[in-house]
């Protein structure tokens, strides 16, 4: 699904430059669950944005399903995002003036789906995250956990190939965090989509079979053997594999 080669992202800062990612190589398979972990400001979110086609690399390539995202025109990139990626953000990023159902429906607008179908799919997506009864509520009327569930429903409703979540539990208490992570993992298992979660929380990071550790823009992959074995067709071989794969 994803193939990242020598991916580098440099940002200008004042008169100098900051290298957010440096020579990152990574392959993400279809249906994989990957967490990206690292300290704040070391490049996690930059990597997620590059995977989501929201940033362009300074050098190197991000190939998604055979297409180099960095080489696509703006309009094509928007279409790729609309059809393939679902985003979940730490701050939920719900439109405050739209109801839960309308927020979910907004994700279907670019796909030119008829209004009636959009509405029914939105309600169904909310039902999947257990919020069918809160469909007509505005974000301000929902708890943090509920808002994040609406955001997850919004990401899921268009049935994307990839869910990209940036610190989805960053603003939640421990109980809600477990609930949200459990919900996302459940949907990942059910739907077989690719799930990439950025987190600084080790507990959350270790729930994925593989974790990409980012420090100072460099990536190191770590196999979480127990989780990998759970999801592998050959659990014994997976359990025996080395924990650190390298970058």
């Amino acid at each position, binding site marked *: 699904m994803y193939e990242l080669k020598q991916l580098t992202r440099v940002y200008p800062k004042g008169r100098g430059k900051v290298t957010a990612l440096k020579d990152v190589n990574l392959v993400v398979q279809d249906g994989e669950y990957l967490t990206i972990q690292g300290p704040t400001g070391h490049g996690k979110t930059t990597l997620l944005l590059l995977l989501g086609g*929201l940033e362009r690399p300074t050098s190197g390539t991000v190939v998604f399903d055979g297409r180099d995202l960095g080489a696509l025109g703006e309009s094509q990139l*928007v279409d790729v*995002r609309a059809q393939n990626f679902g985003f979940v953000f730490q701050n939920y*990023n719900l439109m405050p*003036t739209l109801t839960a159902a309308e927020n979910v*429906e907004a994700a279907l*607008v*670019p796909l030119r789906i008829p*209004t009636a179908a959009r509405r029914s799919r939105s309600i169904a997506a909310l039902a999947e995250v257990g919020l069918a009864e809160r469909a007509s509520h505005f974000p301000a009327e929902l708890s943090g956990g509920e808002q994040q569930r609406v955001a997850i429903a919004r990401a899921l409703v268009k049935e994307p190939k990839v869910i990209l979540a940036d610190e989805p539990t960053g603003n939640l208490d421990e109980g809600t965090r477990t609930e949200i992570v459990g919900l996302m993992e459940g949907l990942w298992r059910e739907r077989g989509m690719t799930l990439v979660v950025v987190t600084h929380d080790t507990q959350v990071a270790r729930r994925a079979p593989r974790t990409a550790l980012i420090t100072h823009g460099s990536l190191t992959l770590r196999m979480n053997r127990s989780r990998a074995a759970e999801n592998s067709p050959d659990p014994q071989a997976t359990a025996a594999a080395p924990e650190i794969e390298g970058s």
Partner: protein
Amino acid sequence: MSLYFRYLGRELRRRSRSAAVVAVGLALGVGLVITVTAAAAGVKTAQSQVLHSLYGVGTDITVTKTATPSSSGGFRFGGAPANRGQSGQSFSRDRLSSAPGLTTLQETEVSSISKLKGVAGTTGTLNLDSVHVTGTLGGGPPGASASPGTSSTTPFSISTFTVDGVNADDPGLGPLSSANLTAGTNVVSEWFKRVQQSASSDQQLALVESSYAKQNKLKVGSSVTIAGTKFTVLGLVSLSATASGADIYVPLREAQKLATDTGKVNTIYVTANNASEISQVQTEIQHLMPKATVTTAQDLANQVTGSLSTAASLADSLGVWLAVLVLLAAFVLAALLTTASVNRRVREFGTLKAMGWHSRRIVGQVLGEAVVQGVIGGAVGIGLGVLGAFLVTKIAPTLKATAGATGLGTGAPGSSSTGGRGGFGGGFPGAGSSTGSARSSFAHTFAPPTHTVLLHLTAPLSLAVFGLAVALAIAGGLIAGLLGGWRAARLQPAEALRRVE
């Protein structure tokens, strides 16, 4: 309702205060534009009324020839006895002369002008002043001039009235054109028809101005004597408040006979094919008749003074600029507030872009919100504008317009207001009542004629003004929306999402 409109409506409600400020700003601008435009239209109407009163409706140019003081001469009626034996005898004298300040033109000039390029119509009139003096011969020296001071001891009375000789072949132009009349249009048509059908020797048919008729107890069928010739009153006419006219109208041929000015007129009315040709026609006439005074409506407008003139320049300068400035300020305010609103919604738009919304869709959303504010502003602005126009009509003072420059009124009939066509009205010491109209004159010397019209300023509203208002309001919304949309379109989703709010 589609998501677009729900999102738009709720977004406007969420920031209702800012939306209200934008709408009110636009409303003030639009309201001011409507009020100023309506007031300016009222001023134009008033100016046009003044010009019509000087000119007659439908006239673009008048051609007259100013009399020199010497050619005017003094009015002498021979009121002094030839010898002492005649002293104490009663006398009666009539004098019919060209309106003061005017000398006559050959009637052939009318047809010469009609052949000029760009001329749509012409007609010539002979504006005359009649002075009827009766009294008893006194002991003054023979040939004494009946001017103030020279016959102060002689008892006599003077009545004056004005007569216009109107060419019956040109009913659409000149002092009796239908647009000048408030009553008597049918009578005038009948008069033109009768005069045209009558033998040249049988055209003693007159139309009498209604207030003059009332003053002199004249009615249809009565006889009125002009310079010794009896005319039958065919009908009464009333002129509009601002239009001017004579006391009595007679066929041009009869007027020429009475004044012994056969084949002559003293005012030529000209209509151009269209407004853009007036200046060219004026030049051609001036070339054809170098000594004539050729006056256009614009010339007249330029010479109109008084509060109307002040109102016109206020409407043209201060009013227009004030409206433009307020509107500009409203546009800038709307643009700034819309852009500020976009800046506050950076993360929102970044999220939409991340979800696959194209920039044009986001621009459309911002634009839609701004246009709705513009439409609301326009609607409120129309209300304010209507109120403003109503207040202008209600509280505006009566305006005064005075046209008094040389040549300006030389061919123009006087009005129902003050002044007249030259000279001075009323009588002089020892004189009896002067029964003439406001156009009455008793001129010894040429005096620049003045013509003053009092008008109430109105602020008429039209569909075009409302259309302009709506267009301005929507334009304001569009400008604001395009600026805000442009800002939103330039947002990079990654930057927007990184933003901490």
